[in-house]
Structure formats: C-alpha cells, structure tokens
C-alpha cells in the first residue's frame, strides 16, 4: 500500500473509454510476488501497528493451511533475496534458514517447515516483512476457499467474515457480478492458474479520504467522509484507490497466493495528466449505477464529475 505523488510509478488502471467488471488479468512479466518501495519503513510501521492492535481483523487462518503458509514464506523470501540483495538475504543450510532483513535490521533463524519455530504462524511472520497484504486460497474438491490471510488494508471487506468461504460466496455481494456469469469465469480462470506462470490484475475504486484501512469493521470512521465531497474539495479529498493483485500457484499444496498492493492517488494528481483526466471523465460519466453503487461512489459521483468537467474546460486552449 502507498500514497503516491509520483505519477510514473502509479499503476494506472484504465483502458478504453468504458469500464465493466471483467477478468482483466494478464501474465506477469517479472515474476515477483512482492515489491519494496521507498516508503518501506513507514508502511511496515503502520502495518505492524495494525497487526499488533487488531490481530483478529488483520490475521486469520485455518489449521490445514500450514504447509501452504510455508510455501508462501519460501516464495516471498526467495523473491526478496533475489530482487533486493542489498536489503534482504537468506542463508539455507538444509532446513536451517537464516533470514536477514537489513532494512529493519532484523535477523531471524528458523527451521523451514518445522513446527513452533516462530511464536506465530509462518504466514503471520512473513507478512511482517512485506508491504503487501497476503491471502492464501486453497483449492479443495473443485472449488477455491479463502483459508488464510493477512489483510491490513482491505477495500471494504472483512477477513474474519470470509474465512473458509468459497470464492463465489465471497464475491456474492457484488451486483451484476453473478448475473454476468463472471464469478464462474474468474473461478475457472483461477483454478487453471499454473505454478511458474503468475498473473496480475488491477482493481480500482474511488474513496473519500486517504485512509488505507477501509475495513468493514471501521466503516463508521471513514464512511461519513463520502457525504462531504463537493466539486471544490474533490481534487484533494477524493482518491483513486488501485489494488495491484498478483496471483501465484503454490506447487506443493496446489493453493493460490494473492498478494495485494494498494495504491492511493488524489484526483488532483491524477488529472494533472491530461490524457488520464479525459479518459477517467469518460469512464466515470458512463459508469452504470450497479457499479457506482458497489464501488460506493454514488453519493459523490456527481460532484466528482463536475470537478472533472471544470478541469477539462479550463485546460482548453481558446
């Protein structure tokens, strides 16, 4: 998760002039499940605070996921050490591993695959070293289930509520999702995911405010800002929230790792790129009500549109 001011590194999510729910996944060019950005230290502090104070909300797992959790530890550590050798390293002597996080100056020895090497579960341990939220889905009897996860920055959903739930039930509340047969198709796609060939997709929404932790449990704290949006303050107050989701098949358990990296950019910053302004304006004005409702934009969509139109007008050369 990050607040971005730098447009170049913003994962701009749009193509074309309309938006509908779809499986917009593409094969990943560089197979990396996590990234380390300049905000690493600051974000790890925020994440660890959430994990320590809201353990239930941010971490859940079912007992049969331990092998899958170890696969995640291995994948994440291998990627960190290979991609950021100056910041992370790992030494493996058989099953005795030493993981060194040089940024936080933390060194951890453990027995890979061993029980009770950490005071917490393997997934909980590794999630304290990466900026991404980490979700483990297990494929059981022809379906996918959310069986473990560390989730600090959810976009309006709840981990505790969805634990052990079938993939299709998790998505059930999305209007239009089921009618379009999309849940079946995405499920079918995920079940065909193969090890060694990871995928990524971007998911976007708008939010009033710049809060990363928009869990269901904290709705009372962030929901009300949505009523305060005006065309005057929209540029500053409203943010576009983009989740970059990466999908990896875990070969030992046949489970799937989702890593979610959440980015926030204020509209003000977004529209400083003329092309983006134009495209976003087209997309938002065309968006059908069932999507605006679900994304929670309906309350202030008109204010945002007025803001965007004014920006478009003012940029015109007369």
């Amino acid at each position, binding site marked *: 998760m990050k607040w971005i001011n730098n447009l170049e590194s913003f994962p701009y999510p749009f193509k074309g002039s309309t938006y509908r729910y779809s499986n917009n996944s593409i094969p990943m060019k560089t197979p990396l499940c996590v990234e380390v950005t300049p905000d690493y230290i600051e974000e790890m502090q925020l994440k660890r605070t959430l994990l320590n104070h809201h353990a239930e909300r941010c971490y859940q797992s079912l007992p049969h996921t331990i092998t899958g959790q170890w696969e995640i530890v291995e994948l994440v550590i291998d990627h960190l050490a290979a991609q950021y050798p100056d910041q992370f390293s790992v030494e493996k002597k058989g099953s005795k591993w030493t993981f060194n996080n040089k940024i936080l100056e933390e060194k951890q020895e453990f027995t890979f695959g061993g029980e009770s090497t950490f005071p917490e579960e393997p997934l909980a341990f590794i999630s304290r070293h990466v900026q991404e939220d980490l979700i483990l889905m297990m494929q059981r009897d022809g379906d996918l289930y959310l069986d473990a996860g560390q989730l600090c920055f959810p976009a309006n959903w709840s981990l505790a509520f969805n634990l052990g739930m079938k993939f299709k039930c998790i998505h059930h509340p999305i209007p239009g999702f089921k009618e379009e047969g999309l849940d079946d198709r995405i499920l079918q796609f995920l079940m065909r995911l193969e090890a060694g060939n990871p*995928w990524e997709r971007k998911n976007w929404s708008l939010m009033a405010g710049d809060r990363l932790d928009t869990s269901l449990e904290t709705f009372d704290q962030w929901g009300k800002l949505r009523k305060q949006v005006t065309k005057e303050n929209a540029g500053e107050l409203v943010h576009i929230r983009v989740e970059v989701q990466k999908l990896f098949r875990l070969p030992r358990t046949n489970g799937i790792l989702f890593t979610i990296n959440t980015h926030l950019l204020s509209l003000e910053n977004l529209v400083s790129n003329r092309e983006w302004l134009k495209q976003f304006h087209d997309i938002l004005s065309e968006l059908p009500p069932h999507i605006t409702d679900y994304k929670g934009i309906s309350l202030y969509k008109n204010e945002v549109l007025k803001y965007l139109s004014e920006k478009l007008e003012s940029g015109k050369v007369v």
Partner: protein
Amino acid sequence: MYKEKTIPVYVKAIEQENEFIRRFTLASVNEELLPKFSGGAHISTYIEHGELLVRQYSLTSNPDDTKHYQIAVRLSDTSRGGSRYWHEKMKVGDQLQISYPKNHFPLSFKAKHHVFYAAGIGITPFLSMMNELHSRGSSFELYYASKTEEACAFYDFLQEHYPNQYRFYFSNKRERINSSSLEEHPIGTHVYFCGPESFISDLTESAYQLGYPPSAVHTERFTPPQPKDMQPFNVQLKDGTLVEVARDQTLLEALLNKGIKAPYSCRVGRCGTCELQVVEGEIAHYDSFFSEDQKQSQSRILTCVSRSKSAMLVLDV
C-alpha cells in the same frame, strides 16, 4: 501465443523398469532444487527433435524431495515420436526443458477414504498421491491391473512401501478388476481412475450407476494442443460485416483492426474475457479455459487463440 515458463533439466539416470517402461531421473541443469509438487501432479516435457515434441508425464518421485524428479515412460505402440524418442534416443546427460509441475488430478480434501484404480502405466499419478496420503496418515487402497507380473511397473516398490494397501490383477492369470468392488467401499470414499480410455469410461459409468456423486469420481485430464499450422478464415458479424482473419493473425486482432470493440485481457486463452457467441460454423478451440462440455457445445469462442475449422464463422456481435 502463450508460452509457459520452463525449467532446463538434464537426464541424470535411466532405468529399465520392464520391457516397455523406462524410468528417467531429471535434475535441474544448475543443480538447484526443483519446485515441490502435490499428489497427482505432472510436468510437460519439451523435446526439440525436428519438430517440438511436447508430452505430459506424471511425476512419480517424492513430492517433498525435489533434488530430482522421476517420470516413467511407456513405449507406446502408436507413438507419434514422444515415447519413442524417450526410449530410443534419450541418453544420460541429455538436456531438455520441462514445465513447472501442474495438477489436473488433485486429491480430494474431504474424502474419508481414497481408492485408486490403475491399469498399466496409469499407475504413475497414483504414486505421488499415495505418498502424500501416507505421510498425512490418511486411508487409501490401490487396485492395479497389469498384463503380467513382469509387466507390472513399480511392483516391488508397492510391495515394499504399501504392503497392506494394494491388490494386483494380472490378466495372464485371468484376474480382472471387477466394477463390483466399487460396491464395497465405505460411504465417503472417493475413487480415482487412470489407464486406457475404455478402462476409465467403464469404471466411471459403473460408479455413476452405483450412485457415486460425480464429485467423488476423479479421472485424469490433459492439456489441450496448440495449433500446428494456422489457416486463414472468415467471420461474419451480426450486421453482415465480413472480417478476414489472416494466417498469422488471431481472430481478436482481426476484429480490433476493423475497429470492433472486442473484449480481451490476457490474449493467451486463459482468462476467458474475450469470449464471443458463435451462431454458425465449427470452432477449433485452442484455449486452456473452457471445459470439455463448453468446448463441445460449439457456441462460444475465445477470440485471442481459437480459430475456425470451417471456412466461415458467424458471430453474435
């Protein structure tokens, strides 16, 4: 076109299991550990021999010990080059590419008891499945049919490792797997079939007749082929527009070039986004997305990879 990532390996050892079956031990070229795998997993092997020979083989080694992989290859009478190459040309030290492990034949999670029915080389996927169940302490049995004791692959191995869990059926002794054994399994049993097509379909039919729910009956499925040579074809749209799809072009590209707003995302036949309805014409499916039933219904096409068998396809766009 979608090209999966591959791992370079070399042949570390070759053993003659019996007259028709050879076992090959594969190790990573840079001596790294290979990815672990789950019970029932297989790999694709890529061999360059005039043309590219791509074949799928189950991994028969231990899923947790991945210093090397082992596969078992039966010389097929109708070999189109794959198993013949493995048997006649492959030498220790030869290099080839393999895919990451994939699993289209996973163990059931909820089964109370697992029963494997194998005929001949169909034993191979069950080796890693039994290994996994054994290490979990779950209960399973193996019913294994072979022509003779000599031709029975992994005969010694099975006797040594799972002495109380197998039953052999040798046809030279007039022993046959009888579908009546399906009646004896306790409630909550899942059955798995692997072997020649007729073996699988006979058992599957019997299992359904006995009232096994489809979710408790598991059979092996393989990856679809890629097009060998691409032929041009035409499509017709609802408004009568004709679009020509050239030999070196996908249907999706042809549509987009015409300014038609066809949906797409991955462009490699795996995400399902580019699906369009087909009203007329015969589709050649090259995707890894639709199920067999969906393909056979001939009503939907993934435009990014699939093509037409007939000269013309009529689309509902």
